[in-house]
């Protein structure tokens, strides 16, 4: 299978064995069905064992898996319809962030999300999910539209970070992100954020302020990439696994720190192994969240959102 990791080796080996046995012609002298069954039990155990004890760095690797479902996959599988809306009306349309109107059950939503490419050509177009200021400004424009029509905003997060390039800086990458933070903090409509893969620092945060922030079980969210942190603090890129642990970027740790509100389970082995099941979990989580938030009066929702972020931090005061 495409993009297997070292830690998945026992799983991949068992899978290969089962595949091999299944391919044996019907006429094969020995009945292998019992053997297949026992291997499948082993496989199930191996998956449970490996995926419930992932290190933070393994979590990062799965979050970056090239076959992992991306924003448009979730939109296709979760939403009943989707009309993509383009452009920031100032400079360009940034394909690294997609946005548009979507229908989910009885609700129309404004959906926003980082979009990575599946292959090299598509990644050049999507810039590997690293947005320019135009992406954040498109999101800003459409969030204000969501507010105007009282549509809940659903934001899918999946970016290694905001793009560090000349044009991005010239056109105010920092300013674009900062304005989104200020706007999202007081946007008068419910905002739900779901980190589906990489939550890369300010580039993620620029569309990730919300009433409820959730993470898929094998995603990460960090102030800096583990590689970047390793290069600065350890002066060594290869210390990224250590940095990943030290930075506490896995969902469980972020939940404990009060930075996210809930973890959305993934199918065994990761979302890339079963898109439909991953999408079902995401849909369920979104529906629950939308129901919860719909019942809260707007004024109260604004107050709750402010308080939620207001209390995040850890310090001493004499």
């Amino acid at each position, binding site marked *: 299978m495409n993009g297997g990791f070292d830690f998945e080796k026992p799983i991949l080996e068992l899978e290969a064995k089962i595949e091999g046995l299944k391919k044996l012609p019907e006429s094969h002298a020995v009945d292998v069905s019992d053997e297949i069954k026992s291997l499948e039990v082993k496989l199930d155990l191996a998956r449970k064992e490996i995926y419930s004890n992932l290190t933070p760095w393994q979590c990062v690797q799965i979050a970056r898996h090239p076959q992992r479902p991306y924003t448009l996959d979730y939109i296709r599988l979760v939403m009943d319809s989707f009309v993509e809306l383009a452009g920031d009306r100032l400079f360009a349309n940034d394909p690294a962030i997609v946005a548009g109107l979507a229908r989910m059950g009885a609700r129309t939503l404004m959906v926003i999300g980082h979009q990575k490419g599946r292959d090299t050509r598509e990644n050049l177009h999507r810039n590997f999910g690293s947005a320019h200021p135009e992406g954040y400004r498109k999101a800003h424009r459409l969030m204000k539209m969501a507010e105007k029509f009282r549509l809940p905003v659903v934001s899918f997060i999946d970016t290694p970070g905001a793009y560090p390039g*000349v044009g991005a800086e010239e056109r105010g990458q*920092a300013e674009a992100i900062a304005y989104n933070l200020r706007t999202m903090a007081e946007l008068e409509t419910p905002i739900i954020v779901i980190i589906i893969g990489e939550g890369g620092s300010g580039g993620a945060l620029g569309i990730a302020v919300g009433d409820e922030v959730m993470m898929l079980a094998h995603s990460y969210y960090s102030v800096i990439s583990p590689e970047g942190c390793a290069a600065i603090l350890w002066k060594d890129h290869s210390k990224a696994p250590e940095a990943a642990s030290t930075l506490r970027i896995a969902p469980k740790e972020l939940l404990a720190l009060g930075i996210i509100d809930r973890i959305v389970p993934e199918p065994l082995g990761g979302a890339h192994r079963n898109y439909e099941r991953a999408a079902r979990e995401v849909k369920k989580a979104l529906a629950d969240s939308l129901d919860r938030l719909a019942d809260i009066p707007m004024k109260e929702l604004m107050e709750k959102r402010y308080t939620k972020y207001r209390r995040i931090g850890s310090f001493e005061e004499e």
Partner: protein
Amino acid sequence: MRFFSKHIKVRKRDIPAGLWTKCKSCSAMVTQSALESNIMSCPECNYLYPLPAWKRLRTLFGEGEFFEIDSRMHPNDPLKFVDSMPYPLRQQSAEKRAGIPEAVVTGIGSLGGFAVACAAMDFTYMGGSMGSVVGEKITRLIELAIEKRIPLIIISASGGARMQEGALSLMQLVKTSAALARFNRKRLLYISVLTNPTTGGTTASFASLGDITIAEPGALICFAGPRVIKQTIQQDLPEGFQKSEFLLAHGMVDLIVGRKELKAKLIEILTLLETPKFTNETIRGVVAQNGGVNFGPGPLEA
């Protein structure tokens, strides 16, 4: 409520040692006192050396015109972060180096008779990075400015979010921006002053949200640092890239003002916007009502 007078020592670690010193930028030989009297900028080439928070405040406020708040907040170590050194040890050495317990000093002051809420960041404390304390102090300052209906001035000097507090640091971007959303709605004035350097998460939050944005000449102001960009694009960067003058040309800042002229320019803007004036006694009263404020600024020299 707590009034106390704390004498803060600012170390001269960032100032080239000795009587005569070679300028980092133009290699001219300059005397320490010439550097000092020129507010830590080279008299020959105007290169701006980092200006510690209290020294900066001293350029804006006279004796008894600035009152620090939240001076007793210290960082802790929520992640038990250890790289080549445990985070608490880094805090200790930063405090020793900077002479203050965190990377920002906040307070209320009288600027030419105008009451202002003012924050000065200090690059000498862990590169002016924003962790929980910086986020909280800035947020409290904004909230105080809202309550007292006074203008806000934040002088940034920061390498961005502090890695040692992980995602907690990242969330300070939201916290400060959310407070500014409320501040903005009250139709109060926020002047953001960007100094060398202002980068990363600080630029991507409160530093970019001023009604008026002032940059110091020649300051590096950016989201991603030039080294990261060069690595990413594998090309040479344009001349003067990410410097104040470059940002002005690209429409990202309102004006460039030198260190010596900053006070007069701030007062000019406050006057044009008809900000109410207060006497020092009134300001002191406001401060006393609010509690937990100490008398400042502390002596600037060791």
